[in-house]
């Protein structure tokens, strides 16, 4: 077993376990912490796929940024001290049936698909090419993304304002 295969199985196990914990744990704060573990494991999957830049983005922006927002949102609304921190689930059986059905559908498609191509050798570091693509053919999309972030910031400010 190569190093990459061993890493894949370990990361897959961690990712699946933490994902299951996110949707099954009754404690909301614990669910958020498990989500952080799942996000970091996803970043390691990116690293296994030779994308170190996306690994860094995932860690810095997604895992840390989202976790900061979420933990602050939970703690500032005092869900830590009250009973509201526990969350309940409903229709567990129906949800499991639908989720399993979706997975079986995707798996059936994967089985019937043509065999996957072999992994091509890594020609060059993808980070410089990614940077050039962002300011080259995708410059307009990149700027639209900046606009979206500003709108999200203004929307958050609008909802956070007091009535005075």
């Amino acid at each position: 077993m190569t190093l990459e295969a061993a890493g894949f199985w370990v990361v897959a196990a961690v990712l699946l376990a933490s994902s299951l914990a996110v949707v099954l744990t009754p404690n909301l704060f614990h669910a958020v912490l498990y989500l952080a573990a799942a996000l970091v494991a996803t970043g390691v999957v990116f690293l296994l796929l030779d994308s170190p830049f996306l690994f860094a983005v995932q860690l810095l922006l997604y895992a840390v940024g989202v976790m900061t927002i979420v933990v602050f949102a939970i703690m500032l609304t005092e869900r830590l001290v009250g009973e509201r921190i526990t969350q309940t689930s409903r229709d567990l059986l129906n949800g499991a049936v639908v989720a399993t059905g979706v997975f079986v559908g995707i798996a059936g498609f994967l089985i019937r698909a043509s065999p996957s191509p072999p992994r091509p050798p890594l020609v060059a570091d993808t980070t410089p090419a990614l940077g050039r693509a962002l300011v080259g053919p995708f410059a307009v999309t990149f700027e639209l993304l900046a606009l979206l972030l500003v709108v999200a910031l203004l929307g958050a400010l609008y909802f956070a304002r007091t009535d005075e």
Partner: protein
Amino acid sequence: MSLTAYLTLAALVFAIGLFGVLTRRNAIGILLGIELMFNAVNINLVAFARFHGDLLGLVFTLFTIAITVAEVAWGWRSSS
């Protein structure tokens, strides 16, 4: 590992996230499930980009990550 292994892992995470979205009763739990589903899609994009030697998947992953963060910042504010 083959492309199918990565796609199967992503499909499993997607199904788990869907389960969370369907069964959670409060908005924050549903948002956590949506995060998981976004993650599965990102894994798919990066896996296809790597196995086809195409840069577009990586660019698209960057965009989805940024859009998800904007959605989270807004969704958490309005749900809490």
